[in-house]
């Protein structure tokens, strides 16, 4: 089920890779070629958790999505009730457009 979701997300235009990690950092599913699932999953979980914490303090409202740029790689992080989704973006992919497509795929 989760792996099917990862596969579905990997087919979105502008997505080069997908990792789905539980809130405790365990990688539930991934569609990654070269990248390390554990490392990418850890980034998604830490950024997602910290983003939520910052949101509460700054009263910015619910966390929608976020991007982290590391080297030449951009990871889009989205929060779900039980897990975080990390999407590795292709060159020139729009985070906003990919986030919108991913939101539809996630239901």
């Amino acid at each position, binding site marked *: 089920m989760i792996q099917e979701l990862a596969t579905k997300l990997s087919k979105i235009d502008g997505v080069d890779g997908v990792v789905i990690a539980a809130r405790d950092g365990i990688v539930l599913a991934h569609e990654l070629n070269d990248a390390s699932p554990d*490392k*990418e999953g*850890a*980034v998604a979980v*830490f*950024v997602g*958790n*910290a*983003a939520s*914490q*910052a*949101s*509460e*303090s*700054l*009263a*910015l*409202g*619910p*966390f*929608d*999505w*976020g*991007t*982290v*740029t*590391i*080297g030449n*790689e951009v990871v889009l992080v989205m929060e779900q009730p039980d897990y975080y989704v990390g999407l590795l973006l292709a060159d020139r992919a729009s*985070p*906003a457009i990919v*986030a919108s497509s991913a*939101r539809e795929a996630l239901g």
Partner: protein
Amino acid sequence: MRNILMDISAVNGVIGAFVVSDGGKLLEHVMSPGVSQASPPQAVMEAVAKIVAAAKTNGKSKMGDIDLMYDGGRLILKPLGTEGCLCLVCIAQINVALLNVTANLAARKLEQMIAEMKAAGALLQTQPREQAGTKAAPEPMTKTEMLAVLSRTSTGRSSRKDAQ
């Protein structure tokens, strides 16, 4: 440092700007004119430190910007080398490309400035502005005050549920 942050906070859509050291300590902050000048809560600094640490542990060479989108605003983090982070609280619809023109230049200056301060041991002391003989930082802004600020400054992006 304050002057640099004031330049950034003058950009249309920026609500506030602050600099956090790599240890999660608030070094300086500026809120846009017309907005409460209270400093961001300590929890934000801790969250920023966590985000920077998480990105660093990925083992890749260079960490770039972190852009966090919320229903009611946007938090943009610009790492200052290994020295700390420039944090920008903005409205959700801010023109990021326009912001980056000012913010990237400012980030380079701040990185150099913090490195010099660190070398001089200034970061080991308390409150940099107190050292400079100026007024100490005001009390942290409460959540209610922050909500009031955002409701005045944000153009109010509607929630996804509302849109549906």
